[in-house]
């Protein structure tokens, strides 16, 4: 029996794996007063780190140039909308055919309220935020090998798990099993709290009644008039809850990064990068593929080619360089830094992840199943289904996040061609929502290892590699500093990129001030 549930438990543990709890180090707007006259900084990469740095350094009076590989700003801060065409490594192109105003965020999709840096810049840039529903009590927890493969409402699993645990603990208390650890007075308080927490009856039992139905929902909901009388629902048996493994999805919204409130930019996460770029105007040069980074005693020269032309390599030069290029790419670019930083750059493998957006003819998850936003978790290879947190009851079409996958299964999706990924995702999703095949119109599937501008989703650190390499990665080497989520303890989060950029430019600024004005 344990074997039967172990896989599922491991699955749910893995589900939380992209969350790395940790308070943001953002402490208010950065102070870069006293920039030496004429001092210049060349920034590589127009993702959240590079854009933040360019914005602040330019405002502080530095001469700033920003080189970006893509033809758009944002990097992983990215939204795919109808009309967009995306070509992955290997040459496969996908045309996004979503209707107007529908979109998918292939990268980051949520901003926790305590990511103070992201909150600061979205406010500063005037970007409207919408609530992001991390937990939806009416979305599903699904195991393909429990309850006949029928998805269970989060509300029911949570109530029943909690109710049964409370009943057991109350029983142990009343049988004096806890006498050694809890005083008699506290036992009374404990029992009362368990009754409240678990929705137990007067005999400390979790049963089908008004109290438990007030948590898990009713067989027939209360209403008005003659048909008003509610009928309580029947809780799942403790054994079934435990054996299903679904209990391990109950705490999904409890980790620090996932706690209410979370937000999403209206119109897509990519609005942030776009707004930064509007502020920066000609500071950003697009379609620039960096091929060499060379520092000398007086500055840094960066060689790049324009990806649209076959022209000769060009060179940009500045006193200082902030490089936010993702490590798998940076590791392949010649750069004369010390062995410590070079070793650190090569020491961080990048995670596999895939996300897919699926457009459906109607919002059946709202119309048929009353699921408004939030996330369904499943042991199927698609792992997550994310419902749009906006446009409720709009009556028209809708786009779901059809899959959000990491680890081994993401590698396997990556190994497929895009149309096969989408087909598989629709097939798997139809096990949870049978409407899929009837309502599906089109989809896109982004596999992060094949994304040409990152070659992976985010940097995976271990405690051993942190110990050995992290400080070396973040230290300024001569005139070059690195930034990005890879140079943070908020791996995979935009807040890591923002805070690492502010930390790095604060130190670069000190170096620049110490060196003083140019002769």
């Amino acid at each position, binding site marked *: 029996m344990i074997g039967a549930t172990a896989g599922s438990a*491991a699955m749910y543990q893995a589900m939380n794996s992209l969350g790395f709890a940790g308070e943001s180090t953002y402490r208010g707007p950065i102070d870069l007063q006293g920039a030496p006259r004429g001092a210049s900084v060349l920034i590589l990469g127009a993702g959240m780190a590079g854009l933040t740095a360019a914005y602040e350094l330019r405002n502080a009076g530095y001469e700033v140039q920003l080189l970006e590989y893509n033809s758009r700003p944002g990097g992983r801060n990215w939204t795919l909308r109808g009309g967009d065409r995306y070509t992955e*490594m290997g040459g496969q192109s996908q045309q996004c055919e979503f209707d107007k105003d529908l979109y998918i965020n292939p990268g980051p999709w949520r901003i926790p309220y305590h990511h103070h840096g992201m909150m600061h810049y979205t406010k500063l840039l005037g970007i409207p935020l919408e609530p992001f529903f991390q937990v939806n009590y009416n979305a599903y927890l699904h195991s393909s*090998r429990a309850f006949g493969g029928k998805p269970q409402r989060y509300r029911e699993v949570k109530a029943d798990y909690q109710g049964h645990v409370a009943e057991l603990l109350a029983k142990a208390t009343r049988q004096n099993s806890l006498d050694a650890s809890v005083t008699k007075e506290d036992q009374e308080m404990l029992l009362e709290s368990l009754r409240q927490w678990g929705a137990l009856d007067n005999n400390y039992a979790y049963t089908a009644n008004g109290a438990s139905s007030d948590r898990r929902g009713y067989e027939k909901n209360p209403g008005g008039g003659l048909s008003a009388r509610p009928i309580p629902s029947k809780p799942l048996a403790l054994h079934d809850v435990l054996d299903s493994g679904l209990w391990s999805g109950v705490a999904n919204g409890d980790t620090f990064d996932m706690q209410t409130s979370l937000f999403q930019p209206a119109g897509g996460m990519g609005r942030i990068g776009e707004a930064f770029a509007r502020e920066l105007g000609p500071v950003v040069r697009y379609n620039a593929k960096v091929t060499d980074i060379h520092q000398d005693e007086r500055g840094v020269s960066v060689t790049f080619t324009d990806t649209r032309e076959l022209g000769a390599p060009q060179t940009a030069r500045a006193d200082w360089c902030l490089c936010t290029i993702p490590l798998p790419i940076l590791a*392949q670019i010649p750069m004369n830094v010390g062995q410590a930083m070079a070793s650190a750059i090569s020491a961080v493998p*990048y*995670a596999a992840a895939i996300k897919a957006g699926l457009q459906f003819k109607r919002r059946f998850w709202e119309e048929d199943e009353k699921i408004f936003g939030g996330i369904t978790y499943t042991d199927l290879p698609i792992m997550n289904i994310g419902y749009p947190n906006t446009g409720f009851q709009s009556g028209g079409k809708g786009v779901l996040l059809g899959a959000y996958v990491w680890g081994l299964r993401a590698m396997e999706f990556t*190994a497929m061609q895009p149309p096969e990924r989408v087909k598989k995702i629709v097939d798997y999703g139809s096990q949870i929502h049978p409407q899929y095949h009837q309502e599906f119109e089109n989809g896109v599937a982004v596999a992060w290892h094949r994304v040409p501008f990152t070659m992976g989703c985010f940097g995976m650190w271990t405690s*051993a590699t942190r110990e050995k390499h992290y400080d070396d990665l973040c230290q300024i080497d001569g005139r070059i500093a690195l930034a990005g989520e890879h140079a943070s303890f908020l791996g995979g989060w935009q807040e890591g990129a923002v805070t690492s950029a502010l930390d790095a430019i604060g130190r670069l600024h000190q170096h620049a001030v110490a060196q003083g004005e140019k002769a």
Partner: protein
Amino acid sequence: MRNNLLGCALLLLVGGVSLGARADSPLFTSRETISSLNGEQIYEHICQGCHMPGGQGATGAGAFPKLAANKNFVSWRFVALTVLDGRNGMPPFGYPEGQGMRSGPAHLTDAQIADVVNYVRSHFGNAYKAEVTAKQIAALPHPAAELMGPQ
């Protein structure tokens, strides 16, 4: 046990039926069943995500090395250490079972690593005959176990 499809995967493997080319395979492996995959299947399920079908490699802002006709493959140790420990952004596959990075890569046994090394060294225009054994892989340094606590 994980799901119905995996049940099918196990049956097929037990029956000795090859999973065949990745593009035709409806099957997902898992932490439970990955140990059943041979070198060719590992390549098609995992490696080709980056190194592409036929070992052709790919280019973006950086590049995934082409494995086809790759002169570095003269050294089986080079290939084996790359799979074990990763290289640059490539994840390591030599972590002890059940360990490794959160959300991170799969565990391959020494025998599987030998098998996939032999596969890539004898396909895609590579014709290195000498077969590497699990024992030789076992003798190479593996990444240290990384105990991961709860979030």
